[in-house]
């Protein structure tokens, strides 16, 4: 039977995975702090019918061999951590990270996850929380009588109490960076979890040693660019078609051969 049939099938599967990834990227084009993903592929093992460096019938060494490949496979999906576009919102609790880094979020089960979505809120106890109501680490409490909140580029949060002209510092937002953010596991809700591939979080104040700075009143949109996704979509679709044509060609050849 033609090997080409199964080879082309792996190619079609690969393109399907790529389209799935593109679909999720496109669906999240307006999700705050979303990072686009990319599927990563490798070729499969080769059927080596003759090794290069082997000998021919006359005893001469052959410079090349005959190796026939058997298709492709998915090795992983990776998050692409380029900066998303910043949009001005004017809301004092919207904080965008410009550059590297993640906010740390305490999950109810005690785990710490990481996010770039800076649409912060104040909960009923006055704590700074994410839009899902999960507290940030370190905990920052905004006094109930605060009239305004200021967050500086290096993360210092200060409030002005009504009737007072002096502002008082209530805490500092810290950012976590990873040696390899592409290795983070996306867990949904714009949250990421560290893995052995990402390395361990290094926590520090914004603006130091390559860590990004904060912009109050801005939100970081997704880093999905519709044009690029469209190009990926078209190229996946065409590549899918070419693989399909291979199947058609193999089918046609088999039909002729068995007629």
């Amino acid at each position, binding site marked *: 039977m033609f090997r080409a049939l199964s080879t082309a099938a792996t190619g079609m599967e690969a393109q399907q995975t790529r389209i799935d990834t593109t679909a999720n990227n496109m669906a999240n084009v307006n999700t705050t702090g979303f990072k686009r993903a990319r599927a990563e592929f490798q070729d499969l093992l080769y059927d080596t019918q003759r090794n*290069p460096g082997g000998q021919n019938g006359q005893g001469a060494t052959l410079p*090349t061999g*005959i190796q026939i490949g058997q298709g492709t496979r998915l090795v992983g999906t990776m998050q692409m951590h380029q900066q998303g576009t910043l949009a001005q919102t004017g809301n004092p609790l919207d904080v965008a990270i410009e550059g590297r880094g993640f906010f740390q979020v305490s999950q109810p089960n005690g785990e710490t996850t990481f996010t770039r979505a800076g649409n912060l809120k104040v909960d009923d106890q006055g704590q700074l929380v994410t839009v899902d109501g999960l507290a940030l680490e370190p905990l920052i409490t905004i006094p109930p009588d605060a009239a305004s909140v200021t967050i500086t580029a290096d993360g210092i949060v200060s409030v002005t109490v009504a009737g007072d002209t002096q502002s008082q510092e209530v805490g500092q937002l810290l950012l976590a960076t990873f040696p390899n953010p592409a290795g983070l596991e996306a867990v949904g809700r714009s949250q990421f979890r560290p893995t052995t591939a990402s390395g361990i979080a290094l926590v520090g104040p914004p603006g130091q040693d390559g860590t990004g700075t904060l912009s109050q009143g801005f939100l970081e949109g997704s880093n999905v660019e519709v044009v690029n996704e469209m190009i990926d979509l078209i190229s996946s679709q065409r590549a899918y078609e070419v693989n399909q044509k291979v199947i058609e060609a193999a089918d046609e050849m088999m039909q002729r051969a068995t007629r």
Partner: protein
Amino acid sequence: MSHGIWSATSGAVAQERTLDVVANNVANANTTGYRADRVAFREFLSRAQADGPAPEDLRYTAVDEVVFDEGTGIIKATGNPLDLALEGDGWFVVEGPDGFRYQRAGSFVVGEDGTLATPDGLPVMGRPEDPQRPTAVRIRIPNGSGPLTVDGDGTLRATVVDANGVATGGSQTLGQLRMVRFEEGDGLRKEGHTRFLADGVPGEAYDTVSVRQGFLEGANVNAIAGMHELITVSRSFEAFQKVIDSFQELDQRTAREVGSRG
């Protein structure tokens, strides 16, 4: 029985092989660092020629070699610090279970115990002390390292942090990637998983290649060329099949007509 039918059959079989190769190329159109394969045919003279009454003009064709295209794939920006593309003549080295393997694919991750590795977990090699007798030098990225930078010569640096995880302001060199190049006759061949193996120890490539951080090299497969090959393969197969059909017809007629005279 006509002998030409064997020549035509060998041609059809060779086209079938070619289709397998084209199928693998298009299936890997989006595989990082994949190298497209090309088939070369050769005409063989029948061995039987020397042994006796076989006709002297019986020739057949077969796949003589499958070689990979050495052209560079398209380099695309990804922005990931551990996506590395090679510009120029050179290869990354990884440590496989059976020795060193070579690859152009530069999508790396931090693997177990902080070792720089491929996405399927093979350690990426650093520059050895003795290029003639290279040992496996792994590159470790310590826990809590800051942002990583990779220079053009493959040197990895990380921000230094103290015991409390606070950056101290300096940067630390973690190692230099081993980069090699091959000569004609090194027997460089594919192993799968976008890795290659070779005979002997390859030379250093620090002068001929440079690393670009945040970029990846795609496959060097050309979809249009793939389609073109595909059409050529099906049409040639069809043509060979027609030749086989005509020989068959010829044989049938010969049998019928010669038979009717006797």
